[in-house]
């Protein structure tokens, strides 16, 4: 509490702690990342493969995603953004590329960092592969992967069924 100019100021921060559950249907995905595996989930109704598996349900069909499918590890860039703007807490040297990557066998894209090439070389259709962090740093998060890098393979057309109705 402080008094200045006759005004009493009171700081009373809010603090609430939660226990968060990933849910049984997304858990295999997160455990996979702890073990160096990329596990997506297949919809029993429309057969689309989700990586990441959202909340364990298919938003098109409102169906539980029960079946595990190993995807990748290679994938194709579906779109990207070159980051040139410095901001507080930035961990990577600019310019760098944040890309949407459709892993082989998956039907939706995931976001990750592209490194080991110049930002202006990145393009839609570029083939990439994950570079995992040291095993001691693996956890239930996509941050177990340090970044993706170009494979050098010829560019690929995107074969996702995700946009079809």
């Amino acid at each position, binding site marked *: 509490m402080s008094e200045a100019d006759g005004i009493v100021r009171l700081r*009373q921060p809010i603090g*609430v702690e939660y*226990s*968060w559950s990933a849910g049984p249907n*997304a858990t295999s995905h997160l455990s996979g990342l702890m073990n160096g595996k990329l596990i997506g989930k297949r919809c029993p109704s429309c057969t689309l493969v989700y990586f990441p598996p*959202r*909340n*364990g*349900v298919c*938003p098109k069909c409102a169906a539980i995603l029960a079946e595990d499918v190993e995807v990748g590890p290679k994938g194709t860039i579906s779109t990207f953004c070159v980051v040139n703007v410095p901001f507080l807490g930035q961990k990577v040297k600019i310019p760098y590329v944040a890309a949407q990557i459709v892993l082989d066998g998956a039907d939706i894209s995931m976001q990750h960092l592209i490194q080991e090439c110049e930002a202006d070389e990145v393009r839609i259709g570029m083939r990439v592969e994950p570079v995992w962090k040291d095993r001691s740093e693996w956890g239930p998060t996509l941050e177990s992967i340090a970044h993706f890098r170009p494979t050098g393979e010829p560019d690929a057309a995107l074969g996702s069924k995700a946009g079809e109705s």
Partner: protein
Amino acid sequence: MRDVAIVATAQRPSQIGTQLTSVELILPVVAEAVKNAGIQRQDVGFWCHGSCDYMSGQPFSFVAAVDAIGAWPPIVESHVEGDGALALYEAWVKLQTGECDIAVVFANGKTTSGPIDRILTLQADPYFVTPLWPGFDAMAALQARACLDAGVVTEEQMAEVAVRSRRDAKSNAVAHLKGDYTVDELLSGPYTTAPLRAHDCSVPVDGANAVVLAADDVARRLAKRPAWIRGIDHRIDTQRLGARSLTTSDSTRIAAEKAGVGRDKVDVAEIYAPYTHQELLLRSAMGLDATTTAINPSGGALVANPAMAAGLARFVEAAEAVFAGRADRAVAHSTSGPCLQQNLVCVMEGD
């Protein structure tokens, strides 16, 4: 005005400490309600969801819930940051506009993923009350104390509410706390937040439920005996606890008058009272006579309180009483905020 009715319902049994996500909680009850109505997802013209982001600790967490109802082909949906009973009110208004004939209302409450007493305190006045962190139970205890001092309720009457609720809950699969107790037994327990004892406070659980609403001939086609909404009204008392009487509930009284509760005999009343003394206050404010009206025959929210779904659960129970012919005329009530700040009252009738 169009005739709008509840034509189908679904609820999930209460759990404590569920590992399911909110989306996984909602998905099966929505699917079951849609199935119970004998329709397809694509027949639904409007979806309305009630939940509270503060309970999941994630801003915009409700957006994920759209996954649970299936958003393809594109749907028309809305969300209410509050109890599903308020989402039902919005869906009723939507049906009155004539823009659609079928609406689905759903709600979820995971009360055990965080300190619910602290989280619900965030509903209080953010400048003068919340920073003091009084606790939701403690605010209700202040109200109970005021009621006891004014002679509006007695501790015995409060215990009787708990005894009746737990006994009635024995036949309700959704309820969490059930069994035979005596008033003396309950009154021998210690105060938890004086003058409240454990039996005076509801049991926080994780739950979800869903209701299908339909208008006019569509409702007649979908249900043998629709629960027609004959009156519905929502009123709010001031947020300032010190600026209103805590021993009456003016917002409930006005909402009940506007909804037409007193126009005829009420067979069943499902009242969202998270505390025993609040049921007594609400009964009195709505003019309900417990000798002619079955009060909370489901056991009410005392035996299972999935906050943000507990108000919609009252609609589910009241509508099911009408479907089954246990009631020709039923009342569903929902409350929000500390010490019964907001109140919604609905009258339903069978044909």
